[in-house]
């Protein structure tokens, strides 16, 4: 009998090849790379160092990363459904979890390449143009460092992978690519903007207190990402002791959204197949 590993590999390779052979993804990647570099250039500029670049990029990336995740993932499942390939794959006895895992893994590599590419180019430009005090490979209070920028890259990729999980879930739910795009855009806006708005409303209505604020922020993906960046990148260099967010809860919040989205996607796809 063919194993889940064999099926995963076949689907994963197909997914990667699909991305590599689709010209629009290259254009999206080039656009992302150019935009990231432009954001830093129009902010403090590369010569101001890694941390100013992080501050310049943080808010735009909260919006750009979900947009890239939508571009990479909204067609991932629903296009197979529209073509009738999901029905054919059923005749090969492909379990829903294998299919979702392979689709997600293939698209996750594409998304990571887009995000890491732009940020690495930025880091190189900073290294070439910034002063010598930014070349210290250590994390101390008051010290700018490429290590901190490396952390920022990792956190941005984690945020991107979380948003991609949501988009893949939407692609399972949708009945057509057009509705998938609308649902993904609407869903991401709802989670990103709605989550922040709910936290602000909670504070103003006082059903959220200062004690529960960090926990609440950790449950909203972009707030969790922002909190993690402040706590483990910006805060490390500035040396503020009180902290900006609950780092552990924020990380768990992002991973929870990712795992929850994929588990729900598998469950819904399994139901649809029955």
């Amino acid at each position: 009998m063919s194993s889940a590993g064999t099926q995963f590999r076949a689907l994963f390779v197909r997914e990667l090849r699909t991305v590599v052979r689709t010209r629009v993804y290259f254009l999206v990647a080039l656009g992302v790379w150019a935009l990231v570099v432009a954001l830093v250039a129009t902010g403090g500029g590369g010569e101001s160092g890694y941390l100013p670049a992080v501050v310049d990029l943080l808010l735009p990336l909260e919006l750009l990363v979900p947009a890239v995740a939508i571009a990479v993932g909204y067609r991932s499942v629903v296009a197979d459904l529209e073509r009738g390939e999901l029905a054919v794959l059923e005749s090969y006895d492909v379990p829903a979890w294998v299919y979702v895992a392979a689709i997600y893994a293939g698209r996750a590599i594409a998304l990571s390449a887009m995000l890491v590419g732009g940020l690495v180019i930025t880091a190189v430009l900073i290294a070439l143009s910034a002063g010598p005090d930014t070349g210290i490979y250590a994390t101390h209070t008051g010290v700018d460092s490429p290590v901190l920028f490396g952390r920022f890259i990792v956190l941005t990729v984690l945020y991107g992978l979380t948003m991609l999980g949501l988009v893949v879930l939407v692609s399972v739910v949708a009945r057509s690519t057009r509705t998938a795009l609308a649902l993904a855009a609407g869903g991401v806006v709802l989670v990103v903007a709605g989550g922040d708005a709910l936290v602000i409303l909670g504070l103003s209505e006082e059903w959220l207190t200062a004690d529960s604020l960090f926990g609440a922020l950790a449950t909203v993906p972009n707030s969790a990402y922002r909190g993690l960046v402040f706590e483990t990148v910006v805060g490390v260099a500035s040396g503020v002791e009180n902290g900006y967010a609950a780092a552990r809860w924020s990380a768990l919040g992002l991973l929870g959204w990712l795992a929850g989205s994929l588990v729900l996607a598998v469950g819904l796809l399994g139901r649809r197949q029955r």
Partner: protein
Amino acid sequence: MTETTTPTDARQPAETALAGESMLTAAEIAHQYGELSVLESVNVDVPSGTVTAVIGPNGTGKTTLLRILLGQLTPTEGTVEYTGPAVDRPIGYLPQQPSFRPQFTAAETLGFYGALLGRAVDTQTALDHVGLAEAADRPVEALSGGMRRLLGIAQSLVGEPPVVVFDEPASGLDPSMSTRAFEILADRAAEGTAIVVSSHDLGLVERFADRVLVVHDGTIAARGSPRELMAETETESLWDVYDAVVHGGDQ
């Protein structure tokens, strides 16, 4: 699809065994979409080495029946049991509108489906079998609708499943390609595969099918070989049989 089947419905005649052993048995199948009853008390037996054709007007439950036989739809009532050999892919499937990822060539597409089974497919031979050998390196997006259907037929046969279900294999094909599609099915049946095919091309069904199931109003209104059905209805073609069963001979 593991439950034991119930005995044949007394209202429907037991089928004559025309070929090998049964590969797929559907017993007392009923299906409803909400309040709408689509199939009612349907019994189907699919033996190896035969072409079983499902014909009938649009909207009478043919596709629902095929999806139930494939295990893609759970019937409201009844059971479906696969009784063929234990293989990686028991039932192959050609959907009504076969379509594939446009970024891949015809050969790569078949290679992908083989890889799902952990097998290296001889894509050249498989494509040659359906008359697409020269299009092996052509991207799917550059294939005509008919060529995609032929690629779909090649896909349905990957892994040599003991049962293959074809939903309208000749739809959109020119007469020679339609004939070629049915010849492929008949060749497979001659090698022992149980073939189930739905089609509106009654001429090809009459020529290639060993058994015909006429689906009408959610039931199997008539069944038998084309010759048996013509004898029963005292007609001279499968079209006349269809007309007699579905329209009462009014057309």
